[in-house]
Each structure stands twice: as C-alpha cells, then as structure tokens.
C-alpha cells in the first residue's frame, strides 16, 4: 500500500503501524506527536493503530520559533 509520511510517498507493507511509520524517521518516542489524516494519534495508540492505503501521516516535533 501507499502511505505519505511527512509529505513523502512510501510503498509499505500492508498493516504498517503508526509506530513503524514514526520509526522510519526517528527512534525518539518523546517530544514527538503524530497525526494521521489530520487526527492526533496518541502515543499509547501508536503500536495498535494500523495505517491504511493512502493515509497521510504527519510526524511533528518542536523546533526553534516564535
């Protein structure tokens, strides 16, 4: 299936979890937040939330600003 992680399109195995998608970018689990299709997925649900074809995953963290 195809998923979009932080704007980049990836061909991934069916059933990829949010945790696995985050792991493609970072091994950090704190200071990071995830939205799938504009809905927040809480940290506790990363392992149990499976992505679906065409999902848009946004992985955010804090940077200098404001």
């Amino acid at each position, binding site marked *: 299936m195809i998923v979009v992680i932080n704007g980049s399109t990836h061909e991934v195995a069916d059933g990829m979890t949010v945790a696995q998608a985050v792991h493609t970018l970072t091994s950090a689990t704190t200071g990071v937040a995830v939205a799938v299709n504009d809905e927040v997925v809480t940290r506790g649900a990363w392992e149990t939330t499976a992505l679906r074809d065409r999902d848009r995953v*946004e992985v955010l963290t804090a*940077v*200098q*600003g404001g």
Partner: protein
Amino acid sequence: MDDLIIAGEKFSSRLIMGTGGAPSLEVLDQALVASGTELTTVAMRRLDPGARGSVLDVLRERDIKVLPNTAGCFTAGEAVLTARLAREALGTDWVKLEVIADERTLLPDPIETFDAAERLVADGFVVLPYIGDDPALARRLEQAGCAAVMPLGAPIGSGLGIRNPHNIELIVEAASVPVILDAGIGTASDAALAMELGCDAVLLATAVTRAQRPDLMAAAMKAAVTAGRLARQAGRIPRRRYAEASSPMTP
C-alpha cells in the same frame, strides 16, 4: 519585582522569550540565560531526521517552561490540530495561538484566531492568543476564556516598536487577564515602554536572536522589562506644557 501570574502559574520574570532566529542552539542558550526568562516559545514542525540537537534539550537543561505556538497556521482548523499535536508531543496544555492572515505582513487573522480560541478553550487548553492591537477583540477573547491576550506592537520581526501605544493602553485598562506585548520590539526602550503602558509581560525573539550580540541584548531586555515595570508601579509624573521648578523660589 512582583510575580507574573498566568492561569494560576507564577513567574518571577516578566520577559517571555521566543526561540526563532538564533544562529545556533549555543547562541540561543546563552541568550536565554542572560534574559532570565522562565517561559519560552517553540514552533511545531515536521520532524527532520537530520536535525542535530533540539531546542527542547536547551529548555529542559535550563528548566524553562515550554510554550508551544501555532506559527505557520492560516486557519482555525490547522491551529487546533497543531495545538493538539503540541500537547501530545510536549505534555503541556498551554498554547500561544497564532493564526496568520498572509505571508507578507504575518498579521494575525482575527476571525480565525477567535474561532480557534473558542475551540481550544472548550478542549481544555490554556490559550494565549496573538492578536492585533485591537481592544474590542482583546475583550472578546478574554470573555471567551483565554488566559491572557498578546497584542502586537508592530509586525513580527519588524523591530518597529509599539506603533499604537494608545490602543495598548486601552487593552490594558479593560483587561483582567495578563496583557503580553508580543512582536515588534526592536530594542530595550520598546520593551520598557510596553511595561510603562501597563503590559504585564513582553514576548520577544528576533530583537535578541538577531542582535549583533544576542546575550548582551537579552540582558538589556531583562533590565528594560524590570525598569518599565517598576516605573509603572511607581506612577510617573504628569506631562506638563511648561516648566515647574522643583525648588520653591521663595522660602
């Protein structure tokens, strides 16, 4: 100096720093320490796997409370999502709400800001909205349950100072939540003026981070905010058209 209290939380510094514009985390760290700030904003962005070090490490090391902002959002929906992501990532329900109208002026969009503020307050956030110097909007946001209001002095990064001191005074007069002068500060006298006008705190970033010597300007801002606060509390003399001798002419 008396404490600043926002949503029941006490701060002994009335200078809130931003972290944008610093050339490196080392320079930022030195400036934050020199400023004496206890509350500092960060932005939320896509995670960059190549990034070295994190602004969060600097703030944690210095025991500075993090205030995530929604910079880069153009609609209420984007701002609400960004605030929720910040809450998830940083474990704080405080948010500096910033909804920008356009890239050229970076002026805040009052309609989207108000819409987002109502939704975030309903969702349990401590909302500090960045707004124009509009007394009517400030009052409406306070009524909507915002924990503070943050009127601009001038556009973000402009360093133009406080363009409409009269409106800032009107906002201060009517507000019962803290008023934080945000954006437009260029140098120390601007920060002192904000406090003399009755603002409860000043938020600034660029004026320090892009100064030729950020740590020195941070120290200047700290002193200016303290001086302005003390002058406000002391009560300035009225302005007079003509001289008034300070020593009597006759015994």
